[in-house]
């Protein structure tokens, strides 16, 4: 435990990526045959491992632990330099010294989800039964499976109740699953830009991405790892399409408009004439350097299956009946992937359960991605919510 030092960034190569899968540049919790992970599909996954990072110190009462849940393509490197890309942590706007989630006050934990490719067991890991990469033999996982695995990690760290569970997008789904599955273990929950179920439109976008991966001849029915190749092109297209859904028309227009890329006139070709094309191509190609194609299939599938109400007889409020967790729900005006109406439905259900809930919609034109960007109003709200919850929890949030 304790602070994790920034990790130096090696040059990117395919070997480095697969190295992170088995030997992550972070802490790892191993779970042997005596502790299988019971999956929703009925399979016991064993053995398995969870890669995680921690920041700050656990206090004497073990009451200041904050679990950060990452989004679809995130990982455990929330507030340190990424070991593969060399870029800053993916949520350093929210997590870090002087930020709303400050390691000075909280013991911060972030783990790679089960099914991921940055060190937690997933389709890119080695199947101990065969000695080969799992590929499509890996069982299909769900958001509740991810949360079950996280709960095992929290047990392993000797923490009974988390002070807060925080996440956006797929991370927000995990936050909600935590409160539905372990209400007594979550003192406060900050659910950002998320929903209690994945909409038909969002499933459709995910299917588009998966079909792009599967259409790449290098995918080989998911068995590319044995051939030492990776369906880069398909995965890049999937990422490009998904990336559009994370932005907004207004944001794209403000950032790129119809401006040309390093040229004055159209080339009358299919070259990336427009800046927006060049940007998307960059997003696609940089993504494939750090992400496994099969992992992308599994994690998008997990989001598709997510529907808390369905797990509670179709009545969302039942999922939160009698809950004492303090909630803060945040949405963004221009987010059309997880629009405010989804957050509002959640808030209505929480109200119906008489839960203590704050709900703020933040005005921004930056789309779904706003939760990862520098949006001061969002930080003010997050900070105030956690401070108020900290007071109720009896945490000392003064400088120490």
């Amino acid at each position, binding site marked *: 435990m304790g602070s994790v030092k920034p990790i130096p960034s090696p040059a990117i190569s395919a070997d480095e990526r697969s190295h992170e899968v088995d030997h992550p540049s972070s802490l790892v919790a191993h779970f042997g045959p005596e502790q299988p992970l019971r999956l929703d599909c009925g399979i016991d996954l064993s053995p398995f491992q969870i890669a995680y990072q921690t920041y700050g110190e656990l206090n004497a009462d073990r009451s200041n632990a904050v679990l950060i849940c990452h989004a679809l393509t995130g990982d455990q490197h929330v507030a340190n330099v990424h070991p593969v890309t060399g870029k800053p942590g993916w949520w350093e706007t929210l997590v870090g010294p002087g930020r709303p989630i400050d390691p000075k006050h909280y013991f911060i934990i972030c783990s790679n989800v089960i099914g991921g490719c940055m060190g937690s067991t997933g389709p890119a890991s080695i199947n101990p039964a065969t000695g080969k990469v799992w590929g499509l033999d890996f069982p299909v996982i769900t958001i509740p499976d991810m949360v079950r695995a996280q709960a095992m990690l929290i047990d392993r760290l000797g923490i009974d109740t988390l002070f807060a569970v925080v996440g956006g997008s797929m991370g927000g789904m995990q936050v909600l699953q935590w409160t539905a599955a372990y209400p007594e273990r979550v003192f406060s929950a900050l659910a950002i830009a998320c929903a209690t179920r994945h909409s038909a439109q969002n499933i459709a976008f995910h299917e588009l991405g998966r079909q792009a991966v599967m259409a790449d001849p290098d995918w080989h029915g998911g068995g590319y790892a044995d051939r030492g190749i990776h369906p880069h092109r398909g995965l890049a297209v999937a990422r490009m399409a998904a990336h559009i859904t994370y932005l907004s028309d207004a944001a794209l227009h403000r950032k790129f408009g119809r401006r040309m890329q390093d040229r004055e006139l159209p080339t009358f070709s299919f070259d990336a004439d427009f800046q927006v094309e060049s940007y998307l191509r960059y997003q696609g190609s940089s993504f494939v350097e750090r992400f496994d194609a099969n992992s992308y299939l599994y994690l998008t599938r997990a989001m598709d299956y997510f529907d808390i109400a369905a797990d509670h007889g179709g009545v969302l409020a039942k999922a939160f009946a009698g809950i004492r967790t303090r909630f803060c729900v945040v949405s963004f005006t221009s987010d059309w992937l997880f629009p405010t109406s989804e957050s509002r439905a959640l808030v*209505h259900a929480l*109200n*119906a359960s008489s839960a*203590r*809930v704050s709900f*703020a919609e933040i005005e921004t034109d930056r789309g779904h991605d706003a939760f990862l960007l520098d949006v001061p109003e969002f930080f003010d709200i997050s900070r105030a919510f956690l401070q108020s919850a900290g007071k109720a929890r009896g945490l000392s949030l003064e400088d120490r």
Partner: protein
Amino acid sequence: MSVQEVLPLNGVATAPSGQFRADHLLVAEMVKPGSKVLDVGCGDGDLLQLLETRGIDGRGIELSREGVNRCVAKGLAVVQGDADTDLVNYPDDAFDYVILSQTLQATRQPKVVLENLLRIGRRAIVSFPNFGFWKMRLQLLIGGHMPRTENLPATWYDTANIHFCTIKDFVQLCDEINVKMERSVALDLYGRPVPLNLPWWVWNMFGEQGVFLLSRGGGT
């Protein structure tokens, strides 16, 4: 029930204090410590903050995004919502008190809202500007224009207040929907209670606002 039967609140000191509004202090006095309260139309959360200092578990609904965000940034449990459309989502008896402070006149269906308040809460506390206040009457009678005051400065064409009423009107509505008035106070222009020994029409004339503690009436 008639206006004369309304029992005024006894012994409430409501001189305006530096930090909190007189009507907020009066409302806070009506809430028993340790209870659970929903403030509908909570604005910037001033009343909720006052209630929290008294150990009351307060929640809020506010229509304006700016108001909500300011409340949440103060650490208050406030959600964005509309009194007219969102109260239906709350279960029966969810709160000990539901407060509607200076908001009734801005709702589209005051009667339905009032009924919802007393479904969600075992008691309701409602305050509103009294349109029977002498200054209002004078502006209409002598000035011949829609009244505007310091507290209600908006013009008729841009005001959010679409359902003004007088204290008398409100008492009649409570009667009509079988709501019991447990306590009632009229505050004058300076936030002081109108003396209790004066007849009811004085209230309706000199009360700048009315504050009522309501509960469900028995019988039909």
